[in-house]
């Protein structure tokens, strides 16, 4: 508010006959900040900076430091410095876990970009046409986002994927002993990359549950964005003879650029920090992701903070890679 006021004040000054000399402008606008403005600004930057440093940077740096230790997380006295040993082990003894997790995180990202996000956008686009009962459909698609994780776990484990009693096997007629599909337990590859790594069938089953949640999330975000698009744009395009797809592709989608970026970022973040659904479905074999390896090592009875932190640093590096790509694009476009 105070900034807006100062802007109007400057505008007003400019209309006066006395033309300010060059170089004076900066000093003048600076002096327009009152004491309370300054306090407000200081607070508004100091508090978030403090929180950011305390809650983001200190833990991140702490994780990095702890990744060079062997520590059970109980007493400082039991902490041992082991240099790069944890990293060395990640790439030798635990390499299968590490690579499997990296692949799995990647699969989630691919699946959410290829299926989850477009599906959410499509549903939002359809619901935006003021269909009858649109609110009901919205609620239905959004429900998975709101449900407690315990319920989500129950739905997918016991209602959907249970080999003997689940809906899927019942519908497919595969409930007989020996003929059941083991949705959550079968680690055979659906899409093999090498003999050791690939997209396993049970991880695809978990991804289906993640998509189920993600669709509702994207739908709500996109729906909110669509509401803000000027309907005249759509009509003008229609008058020019554009078909539905062309209207979306050439008019609506570009107009929604800010929302698209938010959704893209959310999709990347979701796929990197995915944890909850895998955990409530008991983390079947072949379904490790980086966040699971971090928590498995750090939490639990026998805390292995060093190794868990090393996995955490891996996750941090992957996140940095995406952050750099994103920032490059964002600033690159600004430069043009």
């Amino acid at each position, binding site marked *: 508010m105070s900034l807006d006021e100062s802007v109007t004040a400057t505008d007003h000054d400019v209309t006066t006959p006395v033309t300010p000399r060059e170089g004076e402008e900066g000093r003048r606008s600076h002096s327009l900040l009152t004491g309370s403005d300054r306090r407000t600004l200081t607070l508004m930057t100091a508090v978030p900076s403090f929180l950011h440093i305390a809650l983001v940077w200190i833990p991140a740096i702490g994780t990095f430091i702890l990744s060079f230790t062997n520590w059970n997380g109980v007493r400082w006295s039991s902490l041992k410095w082991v240099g790069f040993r944890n990293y060395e082990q990640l790439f030798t003894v635990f390499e299968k876990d590490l690579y499997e997790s990296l692949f799995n995180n990647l699969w989630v990202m691919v699946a959410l970009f290829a299926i989850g996000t477009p599906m959410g956008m499509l549903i939002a686009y359809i619901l935006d046409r003021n269909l009858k009962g649109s609110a009901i459909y919205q609620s239905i698609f959004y429900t998975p986002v709101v449900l407690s994780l315990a319920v989500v776990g129950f739905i997918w484990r016991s209602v959907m994927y249970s080999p003997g009693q689940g809906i899927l096997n019942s519908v497919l007629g595969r409930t007989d002993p020996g003929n059941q599909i083991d949705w959550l337990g079968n680690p055979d590859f659906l899409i093999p990359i090498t003999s050791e790594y690939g997209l396993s069938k049970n991880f695809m089953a978990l991804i289906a549950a993640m998509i189920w949640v993600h669709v509702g999330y994207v739908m709500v975000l996109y729906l909110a964005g669509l509401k803000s698009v000027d309907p005249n744009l759509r009509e003008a395009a229609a008058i020019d003879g554009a078909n539905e797809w062309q209207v979306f592709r050439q008019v609506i989608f570009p107009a929604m650029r800010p929302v698209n970026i938010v959704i893209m970022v959310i999709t990347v973040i979701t796929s990197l920090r995915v944890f909850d659904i895998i955990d409530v479905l*008991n983390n079947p074999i072949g379904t490790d992701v980086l966040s699971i390896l971090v928590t498995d090592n750090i939490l639990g*009875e026998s805390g292995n903070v060093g*190794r868990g932190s090393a996995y955490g640093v891996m996750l941090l590096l992957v996140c940095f890679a995406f952050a750099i790509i994103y920032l490059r694009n964002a600033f690159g476009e600004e430069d043009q």
Partner: protein
Amino acid sequence: MTTRKTEIGGYPSPAEWARDLNRRTVLKGGVALAGLSAIGVSCGSDAATEFTGSIGDAGGALTIGSNASDPAPQAGLAAVVASFPNEDVEVTINTLDHNTYQENINAILQAGEDDVLAWFAGFRNKFFADQGLLGDISDVWDQVDGLGAGFLAASTATDGKQYFMPTSYYTWAVNYSKSLFAEKGYSEPSNVDELLGLADDMASDGITPFVFANDGQWPIMGTFDILNMRINGYDFHIDLMGGKHEWTDERVRNVFTTWESLLPYHQTGANGRTWQEGAAALETGECGMYLLGTFAASASEALAADMDFFNFPEIDPAIGAGALDAPIDGFQMIAEPKNAAAAKELLLHMSTAAAQDAYLSEDPSVVASNSGANTSVYNDLQKKSAALAGSATGISQFLDRDTIPDFAGECGNMFAEFIEDPSKVDGLLADLEEKKVAIFADYS
């Protein structure tokens, strides 16, 4: 205070406790005498925390942290507290969901909110005691009556002091439905050939011989435990759990060879099946046998009424069938409890037959640790469990209680991958051995 020597070096193996169940002798008498003479020497050093053993001196508030989130155990613990004779102590039970409790035990131990915590005997108790997170209750043990030396060993940490009060246990065996066995004329096998014969009969009757459920990757650890103990013996098994043998050892490989030959008798798709679903398959007669703890009966009342079990038969006559998994549950005290006096009185009370009778009146799926407990109210399963454990030559605590929890998780992963594709076994074992070396080095 006094320190007692356990028979097995640093590792408090519960190997010997079962025999004492049978003998029903109270070894503590002798131990207490030794203790007295020790006190005579070191008199006065611990006067402030001296525990006299009389219940009723303490007062104030006391909190128990409990993982008994299922109805029967929850009612059982409430009954134990209700039977606590010291009315000056106001006991609160703080119950958490079973899994949440276990995953957060480290935080719970350090939070200091709960004075007394439900936990497991053996390695998992010793692990925390060695880190200084638990309170020494050796003075409570001085007053204990009716717990055998095996329980003592399972409650003793590396420093020779006691940090655990065992209250109950249950056994792992091959469960079956009595009505199905009667209907088809099956009988309990006494050696592995009879077991395989029985399995063939079941298969030809259209019944899948063995339930196989491994959701969570712990249930089939029981299968590995029993095969290893039958093929290589109890001592080898405990040493293997203690990291003293290589997993690439031919003896370990033999276990997997046998396991692979048994896999065709098991249900397919085990990794996605919960043990409760497995129990349902036993109840409906879809499967004939289920190697699981006797808690299988808690899946349904119908199964509880119809279930019976037999000890997994011998594979090698030279080794016999004397060893089995019989995990002990109980309670421990945190290092700095808010009310140590009341905590110790309650722990002593929990060791008594009276308290355990109260517990079992609500939860009849386990067996009391105190030899003085009222066995006349036991149901058939409890009687059989007590007899089985009593006649055992070696008792292990179950894989995830007998080794470092991290490593137990790696074993669980390996077993789950093995049953999906047994041909990968050599690579999987080599991998597991590598991880074992790394993990054991972390905790040495």
